[in-house]
């Protein structure tokens, strides 16, 4: 397996190690955790010489080829530099965290998140594919969220983490958009192709938007103005996290991104203006804000913002040398800032406070740490012989050599110097306010030096600051060159890494910065007073408030639209239906087609008038529910007659039986419902609804008229032709039902069965109010089972069953069938319930309706399955004619069996519904009446 792939994989594997080793001591856990990243670092170092020689390693595995997404890794100079920072500082942070975290903290979880982050970060810098880079980019957001919120029970940590995630997540979305567009412009998501197509990209019309999108991604991650505010709030994280994420890695991802795409995107005015102006603003703002922080980490966070601004400014200048300076400052900032965070963590850890108003004179208590911290902060201030000085000199130098702002280009060096002044001032503040400035005030603990090994990471980093500061080209020369080479995609300008370049303007600027910084710090009280005039806007509170407002607005909106009113929802459904269908209807030139119409006759007119009147009466009297039921029955009856009139006897039969059962059901329900509907619709609502109904009615009427008057060529001839020969029946409708489209029927009886089960569920445990008098307040009649009704119903039952059998048997050849027969049987049984009551029936009729449903559906299905035995598809029908002496010729058909299934289901379902509903109010259950 290739080494390159091993590097991220080892780290990925490393995320599991801490989870498995939590049960061991914290030291063991830390060492085990460090092992795999250490190996990874070793591997990187092994590859380093070749890379420094100008080689580039690449490897790729396909992941989602159709998206152009592959797992592609590369290790070139820039990746190498970042990998070293990520792995090296990461290892130091692991060591440091072992001491920093208390025994209450779940160190395994912490290390898991940390290594996950390390993996994500490595992935970003080693990516050789745009989408993959974004994947890792987002992973850094997620893992940093987990790290920042490590102490999730603290409100600050939760809010800080959310803010960081929201801002960087937003940036991630912009970045994704940018990267996708970039890839689409280039035609490939391979990094090298993109880097090589700079000219094409800059020439493309999408260039500005791509640049803006990618830069927003970078700015959010690197805490550039105006997205800088999340970083100070991320300080709620444990300090090792800050030392790692907020100095060397996470915040540098944005910087890395800009450096990475430098060859593709940089070199235009847009780039210059956006990047350098943002950088400059951030540089100054961060420095200024750092000055006023009382929180040690807050100061460091703002200084980080400032330094990130500085690097951004350099990247924006557009000169290759500036890029070199930027990369150099990336290294330097990583080392001194990581050590400073660690030092701050030590101070916090050993003294219990990070407030610089409490922390004073720690020199006395922890001189060794103080020394380290002071060296590091001097590096931050840009004091000679330390690494910060060198890169800052280069920075000053670069500010002098740009002229993109035309006649006001002079402002850039001036402002840069001002930034330098600020950084000296806050560095001084860090040193003086913490280690000197009298005695500590009300510290929770008496401070002392930290454990030996907790200092090691700081020592290493400070040593690096010194080493780079004194022997720059020996320590980082090659690395810097190779990184710059990679970032520039070749062609590194000449530059010199030396401590001394002679007396020149940059040196003067440095001197001004040092002196100015001293002056500023000396007069800090005035500045503090000046600053105190401004209201302090805690970005955290503002942000939370903004989010809260967003949520409130959303809640208002949802409350406003989803107001829980069915009438409104129905209104939308109807309106949409009207709109989509009325719109095309406007194009219909003539409603009537050319198909000859059937002439009118008195009967039809009578039917139409009766139907219309009954329908209207149902609407007009809908609030008198019983009357509405009666008019509804009339409508049902006329519809039945209409079906008969227009040659659909099966429909007439079905419609009629269904209608009667429906009315019975409605009556059963009406008993428990109010007898009248109150008048509550406002006149406006009524008019509106009338309008809607009229429109839908109009549309439906128009459409059906248009359809009926146009000729139609259908597939139906096939059915009439094959009904007898292929389906064995002369009633084509029935043959369609049980044979041609038997599958529909199977579904239909399933629906019926399910409905019955569902209704059973509804009825179960229903607590009903049983009225003891009717709507007039009259008590119910005492005659539960009228004599004549009982006697006649009993006699009619066998007759009804016979009719049912008749309808069932003839169905295949004549109007009828299992469904209608089932309903007749059900109605006949219901009539017995009506006449005799539930108790009487219960003693006499022992039918398990549930089993009937199950077996009905089962029989129908099994009939269908029978054809499998003959190698035919489901529901293939079979029929044949037989001859028996005496009886003569008769037909047997599988459709009969299928229809039996239908019959059983219908009876079972209808009776399960009605009998159970009736049972609700039997004498044993009268208890409900009292409860209600």
């Amino acid at each position: 397996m290739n080494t390159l792939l091993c590097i991220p994989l080892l780290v990925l594997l490393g995320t599991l190690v801490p989870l498995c080793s939590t049960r061991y001591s914290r030291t063991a856990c830390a060492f085990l955790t460090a092992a795999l990243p250490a190996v990874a670092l070793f591997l990187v170092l092994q590859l380093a010489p070749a890379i420094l020689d100008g080689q580039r390693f690449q490897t790729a595995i396909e992941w989602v080829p159709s998206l152009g997404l592959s797992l592609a890794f590369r290790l070139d100079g820039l990746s190498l530099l970042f990998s070293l920072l990520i792995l090296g500082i990461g290892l130091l942070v692991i060591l440091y965290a072992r001491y920093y975290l208390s025994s209450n903290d779940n160190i395994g979880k912490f290390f898991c998140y940390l290594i996950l982050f390390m993996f994500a970060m490595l992935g970003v810098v080693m990516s050789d594919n745009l989408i993959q880079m974004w994947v890792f980019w987002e992973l850094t957001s997620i893992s940093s969220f987990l790290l920042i919120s490590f102490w999730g029970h603290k409100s600050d940590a939760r809010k800080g983490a959310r803010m960081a995630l929201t801002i960087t997540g937003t940036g991630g979305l912009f970045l994704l958009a940018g990267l996708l567009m970039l890839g689409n412009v280039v035609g490939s998501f391979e990094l090298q192709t993109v880097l090589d197509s700079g000219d094409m990209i800059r020439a493309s019309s999408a260039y500005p938007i791509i640049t803006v999108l990618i830069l927003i991604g970078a700015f959010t991650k690197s805490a550039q103005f105006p997205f800088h505010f999340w970083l100070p709030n991320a300080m709620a994280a444990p300090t090792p996290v800050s030392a790692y994420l907020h100095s060397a890695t996470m915040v540098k991802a944005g910087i890395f991104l800009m450096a990475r795409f430098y060859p593709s995107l940089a070199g235009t005015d847009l780039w210059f203006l956006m990047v350098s102006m943002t950088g400059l603003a951030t540089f100054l703002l961060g420095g200024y804000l750092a000055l006023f922080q009382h929180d040690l980490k807050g100061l460091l966070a703002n200084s980080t913002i400032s330094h990130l601004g500085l690097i951004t400014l350099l990247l924006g200048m557009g000169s290759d040398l500036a890029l070199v300076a930027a990369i150099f400052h990336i290294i330097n900032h990583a080392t001194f800032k990581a050590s400073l965070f660690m030092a701050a963590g030590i101070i916090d850890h050993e003294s219990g406070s990070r407030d610089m108003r409490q922390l004073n004179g720690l020199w006395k208590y922890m001189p060794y740490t103080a020394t380290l911290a002071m060296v590091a902060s001097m590096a931050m201030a840009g004091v000679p012989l330390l690494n910060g000085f060198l890169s800052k000199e280069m920075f000053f130098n670069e500010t002098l050599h740009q002229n993109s702002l035309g006649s006001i280009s002079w402002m850039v060096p001036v402002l840069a110097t001002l930034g330098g002044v600020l950084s000296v001032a806050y560095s001084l503040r860090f040193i003086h306010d913490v280690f000197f400035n009298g005695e500590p005030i009300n510290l929770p603990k008496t401070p002392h030096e930290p454990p030996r090994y907790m200092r090691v990471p700081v020592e290493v980093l400070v040593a690096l600051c010194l080493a780079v500061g004194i022997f720059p080209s020996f320590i980082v020369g090659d690395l810097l060159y190779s990184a710059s080479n990679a970032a520039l995609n070749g062609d590194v300008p000449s530059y010199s890494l030396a401590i001394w370049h002679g007396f020149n303007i940059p040196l003067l600027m440095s001197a001004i910065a040092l002196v100015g910084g001293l002056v500023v710090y000396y007069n800090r009280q005035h500045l503090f007073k000046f600053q105190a005039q401004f209201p302090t806007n805690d970005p955290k509170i503002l942000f939370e408030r903004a989010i809260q407002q967003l949520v409130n607005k959303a809640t208002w909106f949802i409350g406003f639209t989803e107001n829980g009113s069915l009438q409104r929802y129905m209104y939308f459904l109807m309106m949409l239906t009207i709109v989509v269908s009325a719109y095309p209807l406007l194009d219909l030139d003539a409603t009537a087609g050319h198909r000859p119409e059937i002439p009118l006759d008195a009967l039809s007119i009578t039917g139409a008038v009766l139907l219309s009147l009954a329908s209207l009466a149902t609407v007009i009297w809908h609030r008198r529910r019983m009357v509405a039921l009666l008019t509804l029955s009339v409508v049902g009856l006329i519809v039945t007659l209409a079906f008969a009139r227009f040659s659909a006897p099966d429909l007439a039969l079905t419609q009629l039986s269904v209608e009667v059962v429906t009315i019975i059901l409605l009556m059963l329900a009406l008993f428990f419902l109010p007898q009248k509907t109150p008048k509550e619709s406002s006149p406006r609502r009524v008019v509106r609804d009338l309008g809607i109904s009229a429109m839908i009615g109009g549309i439906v009427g128009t459409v059906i008229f248009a359809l009926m008057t146009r000729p139609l060529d259908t597939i139906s001839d096939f059915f009439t032709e094959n009904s007898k020969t292929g389906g064995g029946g002369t009633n084509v409708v029935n043959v369609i039902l049980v044979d041609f489209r038997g599958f529909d029927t199977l579904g239909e009886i399933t629906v019926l069965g399910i409905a019955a089960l569902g209704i059973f569920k509804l009825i179960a445990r229903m607590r009903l109010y049983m009225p003891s008098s009717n709507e007039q307040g009259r008590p119910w009649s005492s005659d539960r089972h009228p004599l004549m009704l009982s006697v006649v119903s009993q006699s009619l039952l066998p007759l009804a069953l016979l009719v049912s059998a008749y309808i069932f048997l003839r169905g295949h050849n004549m109007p009828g069938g299992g469904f209608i027969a089932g309903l007749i049987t059900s109605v006949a049984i219901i009539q017995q319930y009506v006449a005799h009551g539930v108790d009487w029936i219960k003693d006499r009729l022992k039918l398990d309706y549930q089993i009937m449903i199950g077996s009905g559906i089962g029989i129908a299905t099994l009939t269908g399955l029978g054809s499998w035995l003959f190698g035919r598809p489901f529901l293939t029908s079979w029929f044949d004619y037989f001859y028996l002496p005496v009886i003569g010729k008769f037909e047997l058909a599988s459709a009969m069996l299928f229809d039996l299934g239908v019959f059983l289901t219908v009876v079972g379902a209808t009776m399960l519904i009605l009998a159970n509903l009736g049972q609700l109010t039997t004498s044993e259950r009268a208890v409900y009446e009292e409860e209600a």
Partner: protein
Amino acid sequence: MSFYTELLITVLLVIGGVFLLVGSIGLARLPDIFTRLHGPTKATTLGITGILLSSLIYQTITQSRFSVSELLITLFLLITAPVAANMIAKTALHRDNPAIPRTTGQSLMSKIRTRQPADAQEED
């Protein structure tokens, strides 16, 4: 079809139609629910019987096979019509629908409603 069968069918039909109409006129015209009951229960039943009989004859002749299934409907209606009338009357009484003032025997109505014997003493 011979003239006489056609005549028979026609007569039956017309009788049926007329009585159906009479029943419905009764329903519409008579003054109270109890008098209205008579129309549908009797006239309509006869009317439908007439129509069913004519259909029976007609179908038997035209289809040249014995089509007496109409008898079943007639039977059915004869059995059920009185019960329906009884149920409707019960409902009307239960809900205190008034009879027209000149109805005799109105004193019975409260007894009928409560299904007491006719010779029972008034409670108050």
